[in-house]
């Protein structure tokens, strides 16, 4: 079980939330190339280590927030509302 700290509901089982993926900076729509859009939409680093990702509290307060999670140990730090 992965415990994810929701800013409103507190620690919840990850099955109560949805991991919406790594946080990726959105490119400038006016200047981005097709390659940059493709990278933004489809490509992720997927490291075995610390990653910043967005979660959605779907069973609870329905808030999106970001955390840093170690994908190897599931340790969590750096909670932030989005």
């Amino acid at each position, binding site marked *: 079980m992965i415990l994810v700290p929701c800013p*409103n*509901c507190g620690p919840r*089982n990850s*099955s*109560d939330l949805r991991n919406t993926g790594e946080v990726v900076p959105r490119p400038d729509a006016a200047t981005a190339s097709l390659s940059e859009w493709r990278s933004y939409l489809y490509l992720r680093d997927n490291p075995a280590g610390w990653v910043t990702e967005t979660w959605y509290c*779907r*069973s*609870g*307060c*329905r*808030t999106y927030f970001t955390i840093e999670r170690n994908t190897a140990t599931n340790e969590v730090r750096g909670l932030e509302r989005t």
Partner: protein
Amino acid sequence: MSEIDFRGPVDSVALSAPDGAITLADESSCTKVLVRGARKTAAGIHLKVTYGRSRRRKDGVLVCGSRPGEWTLLAEPGRSGDVAESIPSEGFVSIVDITHGRAMLRISGRDAVGALAKVCNVDLADDMTPDGAVFSGSVAKVTCDLVRDDRDGERSYLISCERSFGRYLFSAVADACVEFGVDMPPGLSIH
């Protein structure tokens, strides 16, 4: 808002254990009004309840802080109009009657927490969810809004979900109550 005849999703009568230690009843026909708006709007100030808590108004309406910036008002059947009109609607506020869109059941009695704990993933201990607590979680794998609304000193929970899950939820919770002496009526079994 006009009152429309309510047709409940659950066609079972209330179920009880012979010793009265647990009662499960369909309360889907209760008035349910959803209010969304910022806490600093007139509605937010009027409702006075933070996320995760509830209070009963003098007119009997139970005001539940169901999400940040969202409240659910519960009352006896047929009161949608007056409940909705009691909320100040100035500013960016949305008031919607969701009576017909949600199923609701009440589980009460000293064994209620034991039966509910079998199918709910939220900690039902007093220090985590005291009387008046409002929380959301999975009940029999259905996402539900729950309110602890004790009656006469006994545990009592209101559980609401999307209307289309109502019959299944009632059956699943009734099934969890069988261990505590509730007889499952024919046709309600989920097995």
